[in-house]
C-alpha cells in the first residue's frame, strides 16, 4: 500500500515532468526568433520586424506555416523509418533533461514549500547525459538513410562520422570535469564549484580552460552548428539529412537541434561555470536560478554569435581537428589533471 507521501511525490514529479516538457517544447520558438534577430543585427539588418513588435510573433507564424505544410514522404523512401526518424532524433534530446538539474531547491515565496529543481538526483548523471545525448545521432542517420536521397544519405553519414569523432573528445572533457569535481552527479559537480568564481572548474589552471575549450568545440560539433554543421552543409548537400523532410517532421529535427543547443549551454554552465553559484560571495542575494539562467542565456547567445562569425570548416579539417588535435590533447590533459590531483 503506497503511502500518501509517495503518492504526492509521484504527482509532483509528474507535474514537474509535464512543465519541463512544455517549456522545452516551447523553447525553440523564442530561440528561432532570437537567432534570426541576432543574425540580422550582426549583419547590420533588423531581422524579423513585421509580425508583432520587433517580429516577436514571427515564431508563431512559422509554427502555423509548418503545421499546415504538406507532409511529403518520398515515393521510394523507407516509409516507417522515414516517419519515425524525427522522433528518434527528438526523444533523446528531451530525455537528457531527466538528469539535468536547473537548480538545487527553490522556495516558493508564499506557501513556503520547497521544490527540487531537478527531476532525478542521478548519481551517474554525467554518464547518462553522454549516453542518451549520443543516441540522437540515430535519428539523423536513419533520416538520411530512409530518405532514399543522395544528399540526405551523405548528410547522415557525415553526421554519424562527426558525432562519433567528437563524442570521444566531449566524453574526455566530461571525464576531466569528473576528475576535478570527484563526482558523476551533476548536483555534486555544481556543489564542488561553490564559493567564488575562483573555484569554478573553468579556472582550475592550467587544465580547466583546456577542458572547456575541448568541451565547447566538441559540443558545437555534436549539435551540428556552424562552424561544424557539415551534415547540413547547404553548399554541397542542399540541406543534409533533412533534405527530404517537410512540415512538422522537419520541425522535429529543428526542435531537436535547438534543444541540443540548450542542453549544451546548460552543461557548459554546470561543468565549467559553477552552475547556479554566484561568481562572488557578496552577490549571492540574487537567486541561484537567476544566475543559472543568465549564464545559460550567455552561452545560447554565444553559440548564435559564433554561428554568424565563423565560416564552415571543410570536412577534412573537421576530422583533423577531431582526431589529430582534440583527442590527443584531451589524453594529455587527463594526464596533467591526474598529476595535479595527486
Amino acid at each position, binding site marked *: 500500500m503506497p503511502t500518501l507521501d509517495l503518492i504526492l511525490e509521484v504527482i509532483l514529479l509528474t507535474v514537474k515532468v509535464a512543465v519541463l516538457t512544455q517549456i522545452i517544447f516551447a523553447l525553440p520558438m523564442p530561440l528561432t526568433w532570437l537567432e534570426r534577430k*541576432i543574425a*540580422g*543585427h*550582426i*549583419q*547590420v*539588418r*533588423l531581422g524579423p*520586424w513585421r509580425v508583432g513588435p520587433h517580429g516577436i510573433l514571427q515564431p508563431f507564424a512559422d509554427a502555423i506555416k509548418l503545421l499546415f505544410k504538406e507532409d511529403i514522404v518520398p515515393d521510394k523512401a523507407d516509409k516507417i523509418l522515414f516517419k519515425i526518424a524525427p522522433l528518434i532524433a527528438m526523444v533523446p534530446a528531451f530525455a537528457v533533461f531527466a538528469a539535468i538539474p536547473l537548480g538545487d531547491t527553490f522556495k516558493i515565496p508564499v506557501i513556503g514549500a520547497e521544490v527540487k529543481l531537478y527531476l532525478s538526483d542521478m548519481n551517474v548523471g554525467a554518464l547518462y547525459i553522454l549516453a542518451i545525448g549520443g543516441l540522437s545521432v540515430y535519428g539523423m542517420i536513419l533520416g538520411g538513410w530512409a530518405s532514399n536521397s543522395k544528399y540526405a544519405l551523405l548528410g547522415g553519414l557525415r553526421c554519424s562520422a562527426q558525432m562519433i569523432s567528437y563524442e570521444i573528445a566531449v566524453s574526455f572533457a566530461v571525464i576531466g570535469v569528473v576528475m576535478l569535481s570527484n563526482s558523476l552527479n551533476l548536483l555534486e559537480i555544481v556543489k564542488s564549484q561553490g564559493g567564488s568564481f575562483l573555484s569554478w572548474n573553468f579556472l582550475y589552471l592550467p587544465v580547466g580552460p583546456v577542458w572547456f*575549450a575541448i568541451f565547447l568545440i566538441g559540443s558545437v560539433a555534436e549539435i551540428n552548428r556552424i562552424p561544424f554543421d557539415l551534415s547540413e552543409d547547404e553548399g554541397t548537400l542542399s540541406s543534409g539529412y533533412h533534405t527530404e523532410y517537410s512540415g512538422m517532421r522537419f520541425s522535429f529535427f529543428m526542435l531537436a537541434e535547438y534543444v541540443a543547443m540548450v542542453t549544451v549551454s546548460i552543461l557548459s554552465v554546470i561543468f565549467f561555470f559553477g552552475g547556479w553559484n554566484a561568481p562572488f560571495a557578496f552577490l549571492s542575494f540574487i537567486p541561484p536560478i537567476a544566475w543559472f539562467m543568465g549564464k545559460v542565456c550567455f552561452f545560447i547567445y554565444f553559440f548564435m*554569435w*559564433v554561428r*554568424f*562569425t*565563423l565560416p564552415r570548416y571543410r570536412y577534412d579539417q573537421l576530422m583533423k581537428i577531431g582526431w589529430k588535435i582534440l583527442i590527443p590533447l584531451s589524453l594529455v590533459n587527463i594526464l596533467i589533471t591526474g598529476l595535479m590531483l595527486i
Partner: protein
Amino acid sequence: MEDGKKGLDIFGLIKSVLFTDFVKGLVITLGYNVSRSITLRYPDTEKWIPYRRWRGMHTLNKDANGRELCVACELCSRACPTQCITVIPMEDATGRGIADRVAKVWKVDLVRCLFCGFCEDACPTTAVRLGREYELACHDLSCTVKEREGLLKPQPVPESFEGGVVVGARFVRTPGGISVVADLSKSRKRAL
C-alpha cells in the same frame, strides 16, 4: 623563404592556442551586433526622399500666377524616344496658360516611358519636369497613363526640399490603394 616555413612558428602556435583570431572575429561581429541597423524602415516609419536630380514621375508646372506653363508646342512628344507623350493643343483665351495655346490633352504612358528626361530638356517653358514621385506601382493598367489634370497637382515633396535624406513616413491603407505619406519635418541622413 623556405627555411621560414620549416621552423617552428612559436608566435603562430601561441596565437592559435589562445584563439586570438577567433576572438578578433567575435569582437567584430559583436560590434556589428550592437551597431545601428542600416535597414530603411520603409514603408512603416521611414521613406527615402531622392535628390532634386532624381527623374521620377512627370509634373506639369504653373507659373507664380497659377497659369500653366505648357504651351502645347509638342516638342516633348517629338523629343521622346519611346513616343510615350501625347499632346493635343487647343486655343484658349481665358488665361489658363501663359499663352493662348494650351494643351487640351497632355498625357504620358508611364509603362513606355524610360525616364530619360529628354522631354524636360526639350521644353522651352520648363513646364515639364520629372519629379521625385517614385511609387508608381499599381494593380491594373488604369494608373499607368497619367493625364494633365493629375500632373498639374502640386507635388507631395516641394521643389524647395533638398532631398537625399530619409524622412519619417506613415503607411496609409485606403480602399483606393496604399500610399506612404512622408513627414518632411523629421529627416536623417542615410547610414551608408
